[in-house]
């Protein structure tokens, strides 16, 4: 009986870690894609996730009366948020980053600009929402599968499936389409791409669009899943997703997915393990990550490359 209970607890924690990890993965993808193509750590990415949650919240408020606040309304809100925030990503790229790229500015200037964009975004949302928490109200129930102490809601299952679909879609886009090919080519050599007639600026914008849309999807899903949103919600997840991208090997798409899942699972394990517990879980998680990076500095799936500083 006791062994059985322990078994259920492990399964439950695996599920918990998987869901948390899939949020990290979705946000980490955007970090990794942008880094892969222009070597920029886009620190505004966590805030794009936050803006995504708020746009989804607004869309659900607008269309909720027509489509309801069940899955139909949520899906509509998700799509609207992904598109709008995708365009926001393009605007950020064109206004904040591209002028610096054109002037061949040092990467450090881009990094500072990214921090500035982050501040701009969350302060703007703070002012617009008066810094208040908003309840993301949906009509989803807590129904699900429960076996003994094991409890998995349908919402949780749908979240994981949705993440998987988005990631597979991205994988297909990067590896099977012309646009994806262009992105991969630019990551290798921008100048050669220009000579081959690839519109580099447009392709970088497209990368921002896709990365931001994925973060927006994660933001809306987090709003639906956790039930409340706040202007500062992107900060911690931004840091964690960045970590996930680095563990996976920054610049690598499967690496970002893997890194997010590993981070989620480690945190969950840390909370449950005796002698670690919730207060020490971050120390535990990051301790292991440091060990991992010491043994493999490029991350799990990262390739070592010659740095041209």
């Amino acid at each position, binding site marked *: 009986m006791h062994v059985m209970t322990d078994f259920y607890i492990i399964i439950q924690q695996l599920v*918990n870690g998987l869901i948390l990890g899939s949020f990290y993965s979705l946000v980490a993808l955007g970090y990794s894609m942008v880094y892969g193509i222009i070597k920029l750590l886009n620190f505004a990415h966590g805030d794009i996730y936050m803006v995504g949650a708020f746009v989804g919240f607004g869309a659900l408020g607008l269309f909720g009366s027509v489509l309801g606040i069940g899955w139909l309304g949520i899906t509509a809100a998700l799509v609207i948020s992904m598109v709008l925030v995708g365009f926001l990503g393009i605007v950020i790229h064109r206004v904040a980053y591209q002028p610096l790229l054109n002037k061949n500015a040092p990467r450090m200037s881009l990094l500072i600009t990214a921090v500035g964009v982050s501040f701009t975004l969350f302060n703007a949302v703070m002012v617009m929402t008066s810094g208040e928490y908003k309840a993301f109200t949906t009509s989803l129930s*807590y129904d699900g599968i429960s076996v003994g102490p094991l409890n998995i809601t349908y919402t949780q299952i749908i979240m994981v499936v949705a993440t998987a679909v988005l990631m597979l879609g991205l994988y297909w886009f990067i590896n099977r389409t012309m646009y994806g090919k262009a992105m991969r080519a630019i990551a290798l050599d921008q100048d050669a791409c220009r000579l081959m007639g690839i519109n580099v600026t447009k392709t970088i914008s497209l990368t921002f669009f896709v990365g931001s849309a994925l973060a927006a999807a994660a933001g809306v899903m987090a709003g639906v899943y*956790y039930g409340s949103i706040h202007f*500062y919600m992107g900060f911690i997840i931004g840091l964690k997703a960045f970590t996930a991208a680095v563990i996976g090997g920054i610049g690598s798409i499967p690496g970002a997915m893997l890194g997010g899942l590993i981070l989620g699972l480690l945190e*969950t394990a840390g909370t449950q393990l005796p002698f670690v517990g*919730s*207060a020490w879980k971050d120390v535990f998680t990051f301790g292991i990550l440091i060990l991992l990076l010491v043994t493999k500095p490029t991350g799990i799936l990262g390739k070592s490359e010659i740095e041209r500083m």
Partner: protein
Amino acid sequence: MSKKFLSVLAVTLLSFTVIVSGCGTQSSASSSGSSDQSTASSGDIKIGVPLPMTGSEATYGKDMENAIKMAVAEVNAKGGINGKTLGTVTGDDACDPQQATAAANKLVSEGVVAIVGGYCSGAVVPTLTIYNEKNIPYIVEAANSSKITDENPGNTFQINGTAVHQTQKAVELFKKLGAKNVAIVEQGDAYSSDLAKQTEAAWKAAGNTVVSHDVTTKGEQDFSSLVTSLKSKNTDLVFWTAYYADGALLIKQLRQGGYKGAIVVGDGSSDPKLIQMAGAAGEGTYVLSPPVAEFLPTAKQFADAYKAKYGQTPGAYAPLAYDGINLLADAMKRAGNTDGKAIIKALIETKDFQGLAGKVTFAPNKTLQESNFIVLQIKNGQFVLQ
């Protein structure tokens, strides 16, 4: 050019500040003795009321001042104190230590015999000795930092609950609910950590078990692994000591994860937004709260009268502000005169004074002997008194 502009701007701003603050002082000084647009009301016995009248906390200060004036009018209508009437002089402390000190000196110079008020702890602490030097008793109604208790020079009485009182009430509630395996969750900040640690100590001292004491990170949204961990320890009561926003997340995820036991939250989560954000999962949650008028059966009449007079419902600390004046009036009557030392002695001897928020008897450290925290429960989307 731009430098010149800046200095002109600075001078203009500075002089503006001087004019504004000058006005503030003047109007409150000139209106003492006349009861129109009043920061002061006439009376034979002057009571000082230091509260924030400007700044971010002004709403609370105004609310308490309203309740204080109501109580003073009622005492006077019943014949005052030994034939003399009461009057108030308001000093704006703006929730700021420096301005509070200035306001305190002004109140002393106006010859107040007692002080009733005190909203911000930071603005109360530096004024205690100013009043004590003149043997002026101070009844504090809202500020509840342990610093006030620790630095009390002897003239100060706190009629609001402190962390100790909340802990008492929490332990009482846990017992009533028959809890065996209590889990405490805090956020690592001074306020929630203090309440969590004190409750853990008190609960253990009463011979009970705390199965886990968890610390979550502020702003982190996912509690699922914590929920599973709590369930695996057979927790039957979860006590959340931090604020409502993350509290609502925890409540939701506890219920989502199939946790069936009791959930209790501290006064930091005592906010209608908790109900809104936790939704259906919030039902049945117990909330520790300071004595709010709408939940006190004894305060029904007070709340109605307040609403009739000021056109709004009394705020969180209005009942205590009202109690403060009545307690002072009671002490003055027992003392037989308005000498500061005599009033302080009478206040110390207060026994079972019946106020809106419960009975007042002071412990040796001049805080309440018995907790006045109340327990609310969320039922059908509303707070209901337990």
